[in-house]
């Protein structure tokens, strides 16, 4: 499953969320991550995320896709970070 995750957190919690997401997905832009993951990994991530979030104030949005190949990604301007396996 290919996931794009976007969050909007209060200033106090945004750093924690960033660190959590870095463990599972590739950072592409401020508050935006994308990456391939399994159902279980996503559940782990969301479980952890719920503990960080204040669900009355913060929001987290997921875009799920079955495969990366069905995703048409366009970058306008600078690519902040590439997500490939070659460094």
């Amino acid at each position: 499953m290919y996931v794009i995750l976007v969050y909007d957190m209060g200033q106090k919690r945004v750093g924690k969320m960033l660190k959590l997401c870095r463990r599972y997905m590739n950072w592409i832009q401020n508050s935006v991550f994308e990456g391939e993951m399994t159902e279980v990994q996503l559940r782990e991530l969301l479980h952890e995320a719920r503990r960080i979030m204040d669900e009355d104030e913060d929001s987290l949005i997921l875009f799920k896709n079955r495969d990366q190949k069905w995703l048409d990604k366009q970058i306008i301007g600078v690519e902040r970070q590439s997500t490939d396996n070659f460094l």
Partner: protein
Amino acid sequence: MKQPKYLFNAGRMSRKDNTLKFTPVDEAGIEGQPRYLPIEQVGDLYVFGSLDANSALYNFLGQEGIAVHFFNYYEHYTGSFMPREYLLAGKMQVDQTKHYMAAKKRIEIARRFVEGAANNILRVLKYYDNRDKAKDLTEAICLIERLLASVPMAVDVPMLMGIEGNIRQTYYGAFDAIVGQTFCMDGRSKRPPQNELNALISFGNMLCYTACLSTIYHTQLNPTISFLHEPGARRYSLALDLSEVFKPILVDRLIFRMINKRQLQPSDFRSEVGGCVLKDAARKRFVQGFDEQLKETIKHRALGRSVSYRHLVKLECYKLQKHLLGLEEYRPFKAWW
């Protein structure tokens, strides 16, 4: 899915917030923008550039079960950091050793490896023979078929290795007919490879070898006890056995494809004292090609679903395990397309 990461840039890898942080460093020693690798998605690390790391990082990688493979400046495989074994199985180990100790049982498995390799070699040759009528590979094909037929006659492993050597020699002899216009083979040479094509083969075989090693690590097999190759000290020789079967399919096909599509040119190589190596950009391109090849999927006939080439290697390990445990006879993977 966990994906291998390939590090070409020099830099520093560190543990940061329970994940990996890679800070590239350029030639002037100036640090670039760090990149975080999601620990949950990292399969193996392949280090081609120079990597700065400390023991805290290796502790972390060990805990997460991530292997690191190192390659030197001349593209040779120098070794791996293997995390602590996590799939220990005493019964498997005992059975594997028993099969190695009993000459009769050992040669049976060794023969299968040679059969698998020869079949896949023939598949590659026949493909190029059919595709282009101008290139005549019939002679090499006939010779290899004859050699393959003599495999059951081999009474011991050295004799089998001899047959295997003849098959490879004939096979490499046919390379000129396939990529003859731009490159020439001029016999197999290694340590160091003497020309461009040999450099490619050596480099590709090494990638295949490490891919097999990583796969074996994730099974209960012991990578040091092998059947076709003699298990030596400090060597993962089972990976050599296994890679025999996959080299023609994973490596040689990739080489032919990249050369015939002119993705690799003679200008992509650099002659060094006593040998020939790939230039950085071309090396990266080749590794990229290899990575794509492993991700490529085929419809598996017995399983009835799509599996990637990387998974085929794993299935091969499972088949070998079943054979060693006496559940099902091992039949090597033979490409049918």
